């Protein structure tokens, strides 16, 4: 009989909401042998009510302290990014395998603390994103790493949702920048960004151009401008990688079947479930059947953080911002 690992969850967000019913102790998750033992709000706060509701849906009680959630075979860190590093460092220091969808930290010093904790504990640390864990995203990264595209001339990446609160650089940017850092082997050397409030909410759009050492040029669009008809199918990500040898087009979230009937057309969507892939990777890493699938995650997030910081500075300064290499 396969072993069932207990899982402590720290923080609550849309991703953990999808897990709540599936990983309850009475409903073992069909795609991985995990069951929730403890659930707690983020050390950063702000998600307490959401965590309580999700814990109730998972039939577990909410822990009074986030540290109580470390008492498990593995720890899933979610919720506000500002609480990630503290929870990850504590979990690693306790010797727990950690799955923390990015970011691991929101400053260079936080990433350094996470790196030191990982080095000290040797515990498994995975920090994927929905994009890098999606089937199409994985295939794209494998293709780039295998050299199938050759040197990248250009990358186009658009990540969009419907209208919602929240700054797009914080909410959509980490995933996009992490993916870029994984695709382009060289560091980003300068960025330019514009945008702001285009659809009525603060920080709801960002359009940017990034240049990397080695001459790869990136066009980036993050926005909350999808109208209801498009947003109903969920967020969409569109990526085009133009290499010397080949080009690749990736639409990981638009898993669409178009049905043409009479004079009309109907598009059917079904949701991507990258969190399933994340848990499968965690299980494989814990059992030693596969190494972490996402390479040097901290180096990559350090590169993403540098781009994130520069894009923020470019937005506010309305000018090009160089990144020291």
């Amino acid at each position: 009989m396969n072993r069932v690992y207990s899982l402590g969850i720290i923080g609550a967000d849309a991703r953990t909401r999808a897990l709540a019913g599936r990983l309850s102790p009475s409903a073992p998750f069909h795609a991985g042998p995990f069951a929730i033992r403890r659930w707690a709000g983020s050390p950063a706060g702000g998600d307490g009510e959401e965590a309580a509701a999700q814990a109730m849906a998972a039939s577990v009680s909410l822990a009074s302290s986030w540290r109580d959630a470390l008492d498990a075979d593995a720890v899933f860190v979610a919720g506000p990014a500002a609480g990630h590093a503290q929870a990850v460092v504590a979990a690693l220091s306790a010797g727990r395998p950690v799955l923390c969808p990015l970011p691991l930290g929101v400053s260079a010093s936080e990433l350094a603390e996470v790196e030191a904790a990982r080095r000290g504990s040797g515990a498994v640390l995975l920090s994927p994103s929905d994009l890098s864990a999606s089937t199409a995203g994985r295939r794209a990264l494998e293709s780039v790493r295998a050299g199938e595209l050759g040197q990248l001339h250009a990358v186009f990446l658009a990540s969009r949702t419907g209208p919602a609160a929240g700054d797009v650089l914080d909410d959509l940017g980490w995933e996009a920048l992490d993916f870029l850092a994984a695709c382009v082997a060289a560091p980003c050397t300068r960025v330019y960004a514009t945008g702001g409030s285009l659809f009525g909410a603060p920080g709801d759009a960002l359009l940017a151009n990034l240049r990397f050492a080695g001459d790869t040029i990136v066009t980036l669009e993050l926005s909350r401008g999808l109208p209801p008809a498009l947003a109903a199918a969920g967020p969409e990500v569109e990526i085009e990688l133009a290499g010397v040898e080949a080009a690749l087009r990736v639409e990981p979230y638009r898993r669409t079947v178009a049905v043409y009937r009479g004079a009309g057309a109907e598009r059917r969507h079904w949701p991507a479930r990258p969190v399933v892939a994340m848990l499968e990777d965690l299980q494989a890493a814990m059992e030693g059947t596969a190494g972490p699938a996402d390479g040097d995650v901290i180096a990559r997030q350090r590169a993403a953080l540098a781009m994130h910081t520069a894009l923020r500075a470019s937005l506010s300064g309305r000018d090009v911002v160089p990144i020291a290499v």
Partner: protein
Amino acid sequence: MEPVRIGLIGCGGIAQSAHLPAIARLPGLVRLVAAADVREEAARAAAAPFGADAYTDYRQILARPDVDMVILCTPEFAHREQTEAAAAAGKHILSEKPMAKTVAEADAMIEAARRAHIRLMVGHSRRFTGRYQEVRRAIDAGEIGEPRIVRENERRSRPPAGRESSYWTPKHWTGDPAVSVGAVLTNGIHEADLFRWFAGSEAVRVFAEHKTTRPGNLVPDFITFTVNFANGAVASGEVSNCLPPGYPSYHQLEIFGTRGAIRAKDHDQQSLVRFAEGGAGHPDSYRLLLHVQDAYVSELAQFVQSWRDDRPVPLPAEEAREALRLGLAADESARTGRPVDLTAGGGSR
């Protein structure tokens, strides 16, 4: 009414693929009477099917009193001289895009036309395609609210091995840095024009990154640029000529507004995919969707009809001047690595 008599100046690729077929499709409205090209065989090949005369010097066309208008199918570096000469000869002018090499040249062309009381229009052909006219109609009808993000990516592939073209190489004017600034004007002028048209506002700031992708070439064949408009809209365009052979050339237009969005992407709507040795492509649907041939027919017909009806030309030359200024500002930004402020005269070199 007698057909308008046309002199064609420049008989290269765009004349053969677009303007000559358009003339042939409007027999009651126009008639080709003369064609000129520095390459005599090109002039003869263009003129012969129409029973027109062929010349190697365009001035010979301008000297003919039986030529009512000229179509300039020459590169942008020739447009000012030819426009001034044609205007002085009293010929109406339909010019290929981009309008000129510099804004000063464009201004001189507009002034020459004004002084001579002749009509001058620059053929930004995309504005005459059914697809883009429908997009503009939807915007005008308020179907998506106010456009906030306008994006168009235009991608073209390199020719496959064994079928290399001189295009973009130093052997061809498109690749000669003395007369060409590269993709931003050769292709990107379309995006510069469409961004202004769809945003419904004037560009105030632009930033661009460009590169030359093929070893030995000297002018950029890739550019990406981001434009801020006075009304708050933002546009983003990527124009590349560096995709691997076999990659289908296509356009992706997306406009996100305050109440809706418009998508017009070739690859989402392709009606015919051809699989051949070089890969997969959809050349027929590309033409079908952009209605390239129809666009040139419509462009020419509307130009001539506006003149007969004594109405303004359908696309004022001043519009082409502003598209040129935006394109040149993008080039300036890419070369300097800094955003360019168009309200402070950027792009007006």
